[in-house]
């Protein structure tokens, strides 16, 4: 590290070499061909150098040129660039034409290389700041939903800070990382969660680190979808790259500082509320049982007749006895009533996002400062998020050859959460008996705040008690940023060279706290303080050489080196058994366990890129990267990743150039290989862990009375591990018609991931549970279409449509010998897994017993309790998670400053395990169970193959329906599988840009917006975008998960 510092100082000193030579001044004015007005902020550069200036407010410029400066380049966003030979002129006026075809749109590709869009041989897609923030979403990933093709974004819920998954072109790893690399201002940063939610059946969600990014500070996002696009990033690139450029003041008008201020405020509510039955009370088989979780009791209005609890026979006519009220010291006799326990619990959430950005550009560079805050109160009590972001960025020219700059970001994110699954805070809200006044009856004994009063046994906490006593919180402080110096000496008119060194860091600390207070679940509580400190250093050296060989050929070459080193420290303090309530501190627990682990990893890569352009028609790009990683076995720790791509602009062909309809056509093809490394270790011993299985808490905790023990770790490592490899090719075409009014961009890609690294489950009888080895193959075929059109442009009215279509088929080809499937999460059954010949992932669990024709077989055994009911069949794949296709449609209408935009999102196909839906039936609270007194014939066949005609239920067979639901269907996991196709009106925004002249040159835009406001889905009762887990099982498995939200709000945006 010290060496690097010395080197940097040296670089800086060496840079101060001002050149003095004869120079003369050139002046001129740049005007627009459209209106003849001067254009401010046009970049005027000497070709092959970084020497230049920008035009002033009237479009005028002036600067000194050297004798060896021959050509000037004029560039402005949205205009066609021009090159003018200086010759003997001292005044150069330029008229710029608008670039309607966006032929010269520059996109940022791997490692900050800027390229004209048309030169690309692979697919990239960008999202502008305006698209990201127009609906006021405080979460980057949800703000991207429906706006990029080939990308599936799965939010886990609508809770503040909820984790979400972004997967580009399907999964490449069963159990490992499938999320793209995030690069902010050239610096790769962490975006994944440091803690997986594991099987995702207990505990609270863990946010992923993309949550630290404030969408309001983003200037643009570029998504490198394919491996060819990303291959220069090497081993980190297999999942694609999300390149984020923050607001830096670049491209601002020079001179005056630009200040922008924005505020978005929204109100959130549960997006979908389940339908409940309102007829039957708590109990079982028609009997009132005041402490059961079931609502299979008598009719609510007959409660006063109950022989035990009814008031009609006990001097309280029309009332019934509620023991929980007695326990609370209140009058236990109440009149039967139906309560909206779900509605009572959820409140209106509130989100406000404010950001302020000040930037200034001048002829030497630009500088920006920004600060932002997001404050969110969740819809559930004691949930919320508070995030502060601050940033500073700048870039300056030191002299003709040297420039330097920096980008720095600080964030502090604090999230209050609720647990789900088997720890679900909401279990008691979702499944509360309709006759129980959950919100009204006190949650605890009047004499002891830690003695809970609840309608059921304390395997779950009373949700109101939990909200006021338990705590699930995470706080992250984070800094990331980088500084760079650039050296670009003049070498020749037709050549340029640029050397850049960038040193960046990403440092954060997250502290998590999970507290089950004294009295939780009727016990003495437990707490867990844990967290991570992560420090990453990234050193990046690149040298770029650009050579216009002749009028036909242009060559760009790049070589470079990247070193990425990360240190992480995890700590964990676990305490059980508080001495007393009210002080949930680790020091108040009877038994404490502490653990700490330290990890470091390093990746060093050497890379090169060669791009050859022929007549702006043929573009060849070749890259190679050799990576060395520390997390693989010694003899298998270096690998080479190549890529090649070719773009062919057909419309540059002489014969096609002048077809009036077709403005632009390009075909492209690419091939790449990239990989993923494992986290390899020598086999070791570890302290035993007694969690899981039937256990809620940890029944055995070492050290036991001061004695420790270790066992051979039940996950072992294959010393012959090699990196997993992704080979992919991509074909695509881009067509534009009618002067860019209609365009289509299609890509087909094919990925084959071999030598998949994962914890291969091995037979327990071998003595270990899993072996980290290579063992599996997954194949993905993806079709992506982006369609954009401007159907109407008429007298200031403009209608734009963008359609993003993705069809991704992700198939598991093979697994290690003897392995049929890989467990990704869930319970013993049902679980989410990867299986051979199936799409990835699938839901596995017990099925209905079926005949060879697939009909459900019912029991034909008159007199048996389950006569006429289905039976549990063998475990099988009962659901496929991946959708058939995704379609996002954005419409935008503009008229004189008024803009209306709407994004529709359609997911077709796919299934999920909806535990809550099944459990609402089991508990007898769903609307479906309201007709429990009617007869039913279960659809299926009898064992002899004839259609089932066995009639059960009705007044003479009163137990049958409950038997069917609580004893039969509840054990058949397939019953809980639902299709979850949906069509969502993801966002609608109406905004009005108030004319400048009214406001003394201030840009003011006001908007109203709504998110997630209409939903059509096949999933009953709940929003399909509510699920468990921040890992590869995300989006497929739900059990008392947090609900999704709909938001309505308004925003203002002020620029002056």
């Amino acid at each position, binding site marked *: 590290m010290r060496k690097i510092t010395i080197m940097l100082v040296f670089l800086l000193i060496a840079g101060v070499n001002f050149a003095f030579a004869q120079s003369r001044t050139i002046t001129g004015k740049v005007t627009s061909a459209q209106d003849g007005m001067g254009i401010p902020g046009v970049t005027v550069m000497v070709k092959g150098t970084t020497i230049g200036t920008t035009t002033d407010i009237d479009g005028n410029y002036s600067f000194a040129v050297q004798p060896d400066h021959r050509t000037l380049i004029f560039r402005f966003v949205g205009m066609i660039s021009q090159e003018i030979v200086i010759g003997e002129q001292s005044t150069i006026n330029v008229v710029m034409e608008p670039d309607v075809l966006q032929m010269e749109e520059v996109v940022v590709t791997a490692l900050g290389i800027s390229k004209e869009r048309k030169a690309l041989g692979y697919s990239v897609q960008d999202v502008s700041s305006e698209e990201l923030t127009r609906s006021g979403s405080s979460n980057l990933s949800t703000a991207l939903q429906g706006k990029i093709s080939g990308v599936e974004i799965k939010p886990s819920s609508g809770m503040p800070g909820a984790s979400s998954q972004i997967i580009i072109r399907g999964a490449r790893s069963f159990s490992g990382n499938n999320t793209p690399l995030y690069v902010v201002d050239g610096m790769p940063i962490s975006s994944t969660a440091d803690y997986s939610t594991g099987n995702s059946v207990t505990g609270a969600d863990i946010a992923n680190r993309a949550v630290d990014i404030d969408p309001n500070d983003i200037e643009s996002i570029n998504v490198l979808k394919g491996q060819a696009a990303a291959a220069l990033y090497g081993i980190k690139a297999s999942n694609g790259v999300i390149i984020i450029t923050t607001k830096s003041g670049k491209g601002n008008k020079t001179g005056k500082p630009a200040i922008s201020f924005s505020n978005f405020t929204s109100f959130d509510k549960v997006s979908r509320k389940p339908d409940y039955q309102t007829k039957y009370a708590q109990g079982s088989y028609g009997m009132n049982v005041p402490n059961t979780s079931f609502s299979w009791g008598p009719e609510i209005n007959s409660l006063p007749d109950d022989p035990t609890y009814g008031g009609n026979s006990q001097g309280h006519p029309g009332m019934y006895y509620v023991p929980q009220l007695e326990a609370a010291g209140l009058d236990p006799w109440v009149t039967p009533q139906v309560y909206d326990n779900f509605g009572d619990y959820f409140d209106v959430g509130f989100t406000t996002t404010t950001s302020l950005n000040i930037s200034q550009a001048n002829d030497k560079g630009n500088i920006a400062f920004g600060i932002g805050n997001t404050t969110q109160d969740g819809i559930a009590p004691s949930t919320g998020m508070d995030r502060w972001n601050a940033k500073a960025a700048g870039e300056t020219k030191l002299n003709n050859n040297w420039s330097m700059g920096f980008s720095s970001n600080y964030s502090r994110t604090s999230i209050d959460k609720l647990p789900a699954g088997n720890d679900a805070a909401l279990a008691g809200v979702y499944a509360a008996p309709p006759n129980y006044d959950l919100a009204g009856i006190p949650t605890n004994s009047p004499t002891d705040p830690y003695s809970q009063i609840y309608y059921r046994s304390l395997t779950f906490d009373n949700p109101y008690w939990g909200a006021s006593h338990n705590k699930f919180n995470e706080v992250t402080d984070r800094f990331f940023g980088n500084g760079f110096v650039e050296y670009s000496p003049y070498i020749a008119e037709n050549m340029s060279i640029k050397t850049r060194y960038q040193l960046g860091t990403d440092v954060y600390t997250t502290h998590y706290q999970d507290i089950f207070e004294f009295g939780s679940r009727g016990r003495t509580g437990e707490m867990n303080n844990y967290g991570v400190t992560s420090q990453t250093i990234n050193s990046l050296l690149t040298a770029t050489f650009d050579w216009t060989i002749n009028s036909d050929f242009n060559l760009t070459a790049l070589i470079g080196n990247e070193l990425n080193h990360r240190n992480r420290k995890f700590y964990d303090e676990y305490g059980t058994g508080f001495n007393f309530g009210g002080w949930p501190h680790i020091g108040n627990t009877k038994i404490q366990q502490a653990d700490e682990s330290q990890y470091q990893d*390093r990746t060093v890569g050497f890379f090169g890129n060669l791009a050859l352009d022929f007549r702006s028609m043929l573009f060849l790009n070749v890259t190679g990267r050799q990576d060395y990683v520390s997390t693989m076995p010694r003899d298998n*720790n270096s690998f080479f990743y190549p890529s090649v791509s070719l773009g062919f602009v057909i419309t540059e062909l002489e014969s096609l150039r002048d077809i009036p309809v077709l403005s632009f056509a390009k075909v492209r093809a690419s091939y790449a290989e990239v990989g993923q490394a494992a986290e390899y270790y020598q086999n070791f011993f570890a302290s035993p862990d007694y969690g899981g299985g039937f256990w809620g808490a940890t029944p055995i905790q070492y050290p036991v009375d001061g004695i420790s023990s270790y066992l051979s770790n039940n996950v072992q490592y294959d010393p012959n591990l090699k990196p997993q490899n992704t080979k992919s090719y991509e074909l695509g075409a881009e067509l534009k018609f009618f002067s860019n009014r209609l365009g289509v961009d299609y890509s087909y890609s094919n990925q084959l991931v071999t030598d998949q690294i994962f914890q291969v489950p091995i037979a327990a009888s071998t003595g270990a549970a899993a072996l980290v080895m290579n063992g599996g193959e997954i194949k993905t075929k993806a079709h992506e279409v982006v369609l954009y059109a401007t159907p109407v442009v008429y007298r200031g009215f403009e209608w734009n449509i963008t359609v993003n279509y993705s069809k991704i088929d992700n198939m598991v080809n093979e697994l290690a010998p003897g392995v049929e499937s890989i467990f990704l999460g869930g319970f013993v059954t049902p679980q989410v897994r990867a299986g051979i010949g199936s799409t990835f992932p699938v839901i596995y669990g017990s099925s209905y017993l079926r005949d060879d024709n697939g009909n459900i077989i019912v029991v034909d055994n008159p007199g048996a309790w389950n006569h006429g009911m289905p039976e549990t069949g063998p475990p099988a794949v009962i659901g496929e998670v991946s959708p058939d296709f995704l379609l996002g449609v954005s419409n935008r209408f503009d008229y004189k400053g008024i803009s209306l935009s709407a994004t529709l999102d359609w997911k077709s196909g796919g299934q999920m395990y909806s535990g809550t839906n099944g459990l609402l039936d089991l508990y007898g609270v769903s609307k479906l169970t309201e007709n429990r007194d009617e007869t039913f014939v279960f659809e299926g066949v009898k064992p002899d193959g004839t259609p089932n005609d066995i009639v059960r239920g009705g007044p003479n067979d009163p137990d049958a329906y409950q038997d069917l639901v609580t004893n039969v269907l509840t054990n058949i996991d397939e019953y809980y599988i639902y299709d979850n196709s949906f069509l969502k009106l993801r966002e609608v925004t109406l905004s009005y840009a108030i004319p400048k002249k009214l406001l003394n040159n201030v840009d003011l835009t006001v908007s109203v917006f709504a998110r997630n406001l209409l939903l059509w889905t096949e999933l009953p009762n709940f929003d399909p975008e509510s699920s468990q887990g921040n890992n590869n099982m995300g989006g497929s498995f739900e059990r008392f998960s947090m609900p999704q939200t709909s938001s309505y709000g308004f925003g203002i945006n002020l620029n002056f």
Partner: protein
Amino acid sequence: MKMNTIIKYLAVPVLLLIMAGCSKDKLEEINVNKNNPLDVPSRLLITDVITKTAFSITGSDFAFYASVYTEHNVGIYNQMYNAEIRSAEPALATTYNNTWGSVYETLYNLKIIIDKTSDEGDEAGNYHTLGIAQVLTAYNLAILTDLMGDVPYTEALQPGVIFQPKLDKQEDLYNEVFRLLDEGIANMGKETTAAGLGTQDFLYGGDIGKWTQFAYGLKARYTARLAFRNGGKWEDVITFANQSFTSVADEAKFVYNGSSTNSPFYTFFIDRDYFGASTSLHNKLTQRNDPRDGVFFIPYPGTGSVEFAPNGAPSQVQGFYGISGVMSSTAPTYLLSYHELEFLKAEAYARLSGVASADAQAALEGALTAAFAKVGMDLDSTYWVDEVLPLFTADPVREIMVQKYISFFESEAVEAYNDIRRLKALGENFITLENPNNATQFPQRFTYGADDVTTNLNIADAYGNGSYVYTEKVWWAGGTR
């Protein structure tokens, strides 16, 4: 300054730095695991081997399901309810999978200990730890084969080498159990300079004499177990039992401290609440006016009286039926109790000499005294004289076995389950079970674990669709596998 000069000054140190940063040595050094030991001495391994053997293998899931099949408890919710009504769970490979894994994990760590302490190992000469490891291996192997029949052993415990171990016959496994016990006893009898286990031994605090008694007690238990196959070596049972425990103080009992270690049945109630009071067991107690009835069962907290759950057909409802009164966070797990040993003796004497055997009666009285003490009671003389003795006189072995069955409530349910199956093989249906589903669906065994069913074709073949659990007895109970 010339560019060449800059490159010279810049590029060389940078390249050197970077090349040094990715050398194989450097990268390997970075990847050193700082968080876990690569090796530990046997005494640090054996502690959790003992704990897992007691808590996970003897005390938890196996015992929970066995307590349903033996009608010590009634499964009234979720998985235990399914076991009660014989739906799904008894035939599913997932049901016993966690414990299946724990047994093999324990056997694998025992193998490491045995390798370490054997002649070639780095702790050669540590005979006592070697002997203890052999006894524990025998104990775990016996539990496994008792419940599951033929299981992998000779090809097992080689992770990454043999991926699909084949099955060994139960008869061979029992030979191995006796071999291990004999070798264990021999090793524990040797002189050693190695330090004793001391506080690392949660069972006996390193007392090698008690470990030896335990090994003999196991020989008595397993000799009786094979009665259907060995024609009844009851003299051997008595011989071995006499070399075993001499009082309750010697029994192999794993004690929980109620804070960092917690009893399985109690934790199961707190975490799951899946059991109700058994009508069948209640009936056996009331028939005998057994004073333990009032101790075994208590009302569900917050309810007034003990509601007994009907075996085989309870309502699936929590918070209604009575619960066990003997569970507590510190209720111990018995690997081999003193009362079991006395019952074994009583059975052996009674089988040899019937009512005439005063030894049988004395052993039964000793067993009952210990069994009452287990639940905090003194053996009531009225009960002994008026209720037990007449039944003993009428049919000594039957009463011994019924009393043994009652005394096993509830944590020793696995042994009760083994006894019921052994007696059935001998044609002695002394213990009347009331679950009507037993007519067609008495679980003759537990299934193999899903981790092997899904990855080991040998086990997948043996498992089939799981329905074998209702039809195929284990070898010592008269079956073939």
